[in-house]
């Protein structure tokens, strides 16, 4: 009997103790905040003026769609979440919300967010949002995550779509600039996740998730981290070269890219063993932490400079 059917069968008639905060936790608020931020960049990069109410609603719909994906991911992954220390306090494994409740919540929010975006902006944006939810839940969570070490490479596309969805919401089209923003997040995802996977490889092993360090080994993972970072650092400069970001953005992208590259080189060089376990783990931890700062910096500059120019300063 699967974890989900076991949990649903256990206590169908019980009265829930879950509060609004537990349902909010199902939406993966930290992921949602990153999605809102990158989507805002996509919205601001788009040419033309957008009514603030419509812009706000588009961002809200994208955020709800991302949250719905998170809830559906937690519904499907409840069995492995219950084993891993990082995820065992999530609402389903903690026993606060039944899997079926999370499934209904996620499905309702998915449909609601897609129709809201379609009715308020356009159906290209709504279609892209629907595809993003489908990609994250079905392609990544149900298929790739448990079957290939390339899971987060291909699945990373789901996290990269929000700026494109927002751009489509503002313009009704997809452009090269929105594709560049997509590509930056897409190429950023593997070094970001594999740095974490190097630290948590035992846990992934225990639940049978084929992450790169478990399948190809930590050394191969370090090499791939380095290769993706070598592609990422120059790619992040492209918005400036294409002219939809300022030289300030270019300077930030170059300097932060070099810092990211230096950390990736360190992860590649400092291997576990010969008494360097701690140093090696520290290098991976630093790369993981800095990768978040790096992506935040890139999009923060785009958001700030576009907001400033739109406000007419």
């Amino acid at each position, binding site marked *: 009997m699967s974890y989900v059917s076991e949990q649903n069968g256990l206590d169908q008639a019980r009265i*829930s*103790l879950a509060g*609004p905060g537990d*349902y909010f936790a199902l939406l993966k608020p930290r992921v949602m905040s990153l999605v809102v931020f990158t989507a805002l960049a996509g919205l601001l990069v788009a040419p033309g003026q957008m009514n603030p*109410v419509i812009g706000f*609603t588009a961002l809200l719909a994208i955020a709800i769609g991302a949250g719905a994906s998170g809830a559906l991911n937690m519904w499907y992954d409840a069995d492995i979440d219950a084993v891993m220390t990082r995820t065992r306090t999530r609402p389903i494994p903690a026993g606060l919300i039944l899997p079926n409740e999370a499934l209904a919540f996620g499905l309702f929010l998915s449909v609601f967010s897609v129709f809201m975006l379609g009715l308020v902006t356009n159906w290209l944006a709504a279609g892209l949002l629907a595809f993003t939810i489908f990609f994250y839940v079905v392609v990544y969570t149900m298929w790739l995550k448990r079957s290939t070490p390339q899971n987060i490479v291909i699945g990373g596309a789901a996290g990269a779509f929000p700026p494109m969805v927002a751009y489509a919401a503002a313009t009704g089209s997809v452009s090269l600039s929105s594709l560049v923003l997509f590509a930056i997040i897409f190429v950023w995802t593997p070094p970001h996740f594999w740095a974490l996977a190097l630290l948590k490889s035992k846990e992934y092993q225990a639940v049978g998730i084929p992450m790169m360090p478990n399948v190809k080994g930590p050394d191969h993972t370090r090499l791939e981290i380095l290769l993706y970072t070598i592609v990422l650092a120059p790619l992040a400069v492209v918005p400036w070269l294409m002219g939809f970001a300022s030289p300030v953005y270019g300077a930030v992208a170059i300097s932060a890219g070099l810092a990211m590259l230096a950390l990736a080189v360190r992860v590649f060089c400092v291997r576990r063993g010969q008494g360097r376990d701690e140093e090696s783990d520290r290098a991976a931890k630093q790369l993981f932490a800095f990768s978040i700062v790096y992506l935040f910096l890139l999009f923060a500059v785009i958001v700030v400079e576009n907001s400033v120019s739109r406000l007419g300063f």
Partner: protein
Amino acid sequence: MVNQPAQNERPPEGIKLTPEQEKSRRARNIAIGLAVGFFVVLFYAITVVKVGPAVFNRPL
């Protein structure tokens, strides 16, 4: 012969909620109410923005 109650029969006094269950149910109800209220206001604002005064300008 004694009549056995059906297995799923509820107690005659109904289900009594514990204080924790009542508290969490109330919190959920308030959250749903606030969310519905928020979306009513939002959709009203969207209607005004998208249609504006033209809402009256249509064939009857």
